[in-house]
């Protein structure tokens, strides 16, 4: 019996570490994207979506660690909110940028940071 319990905790432990690692990785990608990409529309891609996945994975790790209790329901609810509200907010921001006259950056524009040529 104790073997199964330790195995379960081991699996849980590994799952938490993996989820956290991926969460951190995607948040890192999101941060790099926001810092590197050329305009607001491109930034919104990583800022609000890659970040959503990063946050989602980290929250999933928290839910897994908390186990079966009331606080886990909170975490799941939080995850649900993040997934609903983040794309909506990104859309609102991009739309407000479009309506206040920001034109999207195109490939043949100049000031290409880090282009091959």
């Amino acid at each position: 019996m104790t073997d199964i319990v330790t195995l379960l905790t081991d699996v849980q432990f590994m799952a938490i570490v993996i989820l956290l690692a991926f969460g951190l990785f995607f948040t890192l990608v999101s941060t790099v994207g926001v810092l590197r990409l050329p305009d607001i529309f491109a930034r919104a891609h990583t800022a609000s979506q890659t970040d959503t996945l990063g946050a989602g994975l980290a929250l999933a790790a928290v839910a897994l660690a908390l186990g079966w209790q009331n606080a886990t329901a909170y975490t799941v609810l939080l995850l649900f909110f993040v997934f609903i509200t983040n794309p909506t907010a990104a859309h609102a921001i991009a739309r407000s940028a479009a309506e206040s006259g920001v034109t999207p950056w195109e490939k043949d524009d100049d000031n290409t940071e880090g282009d091959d040529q």
Partner: protein
Amino acid sequence: MAANKILVPLSDTVTVRQTVGYAVQSALEDADELECHLVVAIPHDGDGPAGESIIGEAEQLLERAASWVHEDAGSVSVSVHTAVLGTKEYLFGPREYAEEFATYAGEYGIDCVVLDPEYQPGVTAPMLQPLERELSNVGLEYDEAPVERPAKHERLVGQASFDRMFALFWVSYGFYLILGDPTYWFDLVTGAAVAGIVSLTLSNITFTVAPDRIKSPLRTLRFGLYVPYLIFEIVKANLAISVVILRPSMPIDPSLTRVNARVRSGLPLLALANSITLTPGTLAVRANDQRLIVHTLIPSAREDLFDGSLERAVRFVFHGRDSASIATPKERGDTEIIEGEDL
């Protein structure tokens, strides 16, 4: 019977197309000839250097509207007159507009004005109601076109019904108990009271379409099937975008695209637009009716968007399996890549 003469004041609104359609249709109901006067009234700040472009825009709108009239009239003989009003007089408020329309109507013997419910000349606040009042003051007959407004302009308040209240009661009760403790009698009682108050007072603004007793639970179930698929798509797209962003050369190719989605306005469109946005590489910038303007970051994301797999999935959630199999947006010709200025 003689030709019907109608006056349609235009402004650049989302419902202007439907208004023109209604005007032509209703005028041809009891006559076989139509004299259609399309006018754009320029507000008083339309002079000066900015005035040129405003008049230019007005003329473009008139040109488009004239072609709509011909399109809607079909084979019926129709004469279209267009005019830009308010270039000589200064139009300040609803009364000036009403008088201007009355003068114009008197000149041509027009007997009816068809109004766009969203009619909004210039940059002032919505002026439909004051304009209607002034029109009846100057003795001009008017008719408000019944139009379907897109989500943004939908009236918030719907009809209260038992189904709405019932659904809202259980949703809010469930939410309360998740935050509280479902085994504690105090939370159960206060939750029921709060959910009761919420469902009584707010049920008429919660759902735009009343929940259906059979279809809504079914949709929720199918949505449960959709979520894993969406998560799979999100992870896939995230990995693709991560590779692009972390490469030192960062080979991005951003462009704006327009996709005409074949889903109903409201919740289905929201689900589709949110799914598109949640998938990295595509970002919904605008949603005018079914026309989505989507910013795409890399070519592979653009291809996925044009293949319309998310659209099919959303159709599956809301309309069932039968309607899920439609041609891809690319095959339908509902996709195009647009330039930055054409927002």
